């Protein structure tokens, strides 16, 4: 090799200098792109905090969090968020009552029972379902499911919490399924083989070995599904009604936090008014709740990744 040194093409100093400069610039550009997400979070926190703080100068935070009447758009204004919160929780509860048992069963079935070829088909279909626009689910809730439910429950209103809750359950079921299935698949095969060797059948293996092994991941699926249901907007904005009402009865019509934000945003509420600030205060509460659940879910998911 040494005798060939003279033939080697040496990059010119100018080329190397230019390359170094381009490298430095690109490093900076990529770092900037990477920090955009931090600015987005900062922007969200800033705008929610700023408008809420103005709001809380007019309304005490205690009244906001404990008041049982929410009538900011009426002549006599009350600013208690509990009615919106109760409706949000009721819808979420209905949705989870569908998505948790359904999602867990389907996940166990897919991970432990289904033949591989069926799983190959089902997984992409689940992904496809996650892509259906939420406004379409809202249409289902208002114009298909509610009329159907009214056949069974004659007293049901046109707007109610039950129908959007059920539809939302179907909507987040694929998500709960795929997160829990991922967690179950991450349980090492040798644990299953050990269980079979001890005489467990597949059901016992699934329930006594795989599920405990995947517990943190499955819990993460529930928590993240819950956070989605709480923040889901269009289904409830379309099908749950617009009147704030303190209720835990799924048969009632009541506005949820996201539905209220949409209701105000599509109306003509002027910037800087107290009505305008209410959507930021309500949004801030929503943000805090979903963030809490997301952080719990994040920690749980990371834990199951660490174990195996």
């Amino acid at each position, binding site marked *: 090799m040494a005798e060939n040194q003279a033939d080697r093409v040496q990059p010119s100093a100018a080329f190397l200098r230019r390359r170094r400069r381009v490298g430095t610039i690109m490093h900076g550009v990529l770092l900037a792109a990477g920090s955009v997400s931090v600015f*987005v979070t900062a922007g969200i926190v800033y705008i929610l905090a700023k408008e809420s703080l103005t709001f809380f100068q007019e309304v005490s935070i205690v009244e906001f969090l404990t008041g049982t009447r929410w009538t900011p758009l009426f002549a006599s204004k009350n600013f208690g968020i509990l009615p919106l919160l109760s409706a949000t929780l009721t819808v979420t509860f209905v949705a989870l009552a569908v998505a948790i048992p359904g999602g867990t069963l*389907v996940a166990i079935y897919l991970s432990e029972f289904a033949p591989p070829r069926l799983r190959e088909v089902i997984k992409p279909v689940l992904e496809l379902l996650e892509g259906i626009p939420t406004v379409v689910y809202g249409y*289902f809730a208002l114009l298909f499911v509610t009329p159907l439910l009214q056949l069974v429950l004659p007293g049901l209103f046109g707007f109610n919490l039950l129908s959007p809750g059920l539809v939302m359950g179907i909507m987040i079921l694929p998500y709960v399924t795929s997160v829990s299935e991922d967690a179950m698949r991450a349980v090492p095969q040798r644990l299953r083989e050990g269980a079979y060797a001890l*005489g467990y059948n597949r059901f016992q293996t699934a329930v006594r070995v795989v599920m405990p092994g995947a517990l943190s991941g499955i819990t993460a699926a529930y928590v993240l599904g819950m956070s989605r249901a709480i923040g889901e*907007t*269009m289904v409830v904005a379309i099908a749950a009604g617009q009147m704030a009402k303190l209720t835990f009865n799924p048969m009632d019509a009541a506005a949820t936090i996201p539905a209220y934000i949409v209701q105000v945003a599509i109306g003509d509420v002027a910037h800087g008014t107290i009505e305008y600030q209410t959507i930021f205060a309500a949004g801030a509460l929503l*943000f805090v709740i979903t963030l809490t659940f997301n952080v719990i879910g994040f920690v749980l998911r990371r834990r199951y990744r660490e174990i195996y």
Partner: protein
Amino acid sequence: MVATPHTPDRERDQGFTRLIRRAKRQDMIFLACGFAVLAMASLTLLSLIVGLAVQGASWVDWQFFTSFPSRKPEEAGIVSAWVGSTLVMVVTAFLALPLGVGAGLYLEEYAPQNWVTDIIEINTTNLAGVPSIIYGLLALGLFLFTFGMGQWILVAGLVLALLILPVVIVATRESLRAIPDSVREGAHALGADKWQVVRLYLLPAARPGILTGLIVGMSRAIGETAPVITIGALTFIAFLPAAPIDGTFPYLNFEWLTSAFTVMPIQMFNWISRPQSGFHELAAAAGLVLLVMTLLMNGLAIYIRYRLRKAPSAE
């Protein structure tokens, strides 16, 4: 085990047989349950989609695609909505692709192991879980009232780009992680510097994966209503934005970026909220078009990924 006489042995065998039979039965029952739930969920969704198609299909015709919204259902159409959606998607893609890929590259290839990186990582994960209505509040409070922007196509595209940013970032990182280190080491050994490795080797190899992520993100963005509705995307738009291409130099016209607009999901939402059943059928038709669009995009993404998995990156 000690040798046992004949009879207890047979009894024990029968006991085992019973146990085994019971265990198998239990398995079968659960198998049936799991399959039943799966089938029920699929059937429910299928019937909803078929119902939507039955309601809306007869309205989907040429006139539907070329007419503006109207007070009379039989004259109404989605031309302003699909043009608006298309233009918003153009903005979203132009913003989300460089930002998402840049962030993914930074986190995967450049970022040092320190607290700044940790913050960016955790932050990206959490952003993915922020409800979309919150992005709507961000657009309303920050872009409209702090930065003084208007109810523009640009603002909608920007918000949706921020919304799908985590999807593009995650897709970029996963496809970068799938490239073996030998590619990087080989390129460095040939004298390439970091950026050359990224530009000449990593980006081409990661392209299909990035594309998949972008398509999935775009299909989510096109169906999103909440982040756009808060900036007051007017629902009754009976005009089209200025054409992006015109006859005079420089042939590109950017006036459309600051035009008022409506998009498909908002048009659909508007029609759902009206009491007349004619509009409900229009909503079904719009929903059908929207559904077909998102399913096609998602299907394309899944197909690309499937092809990718079948032929591992040989190049």
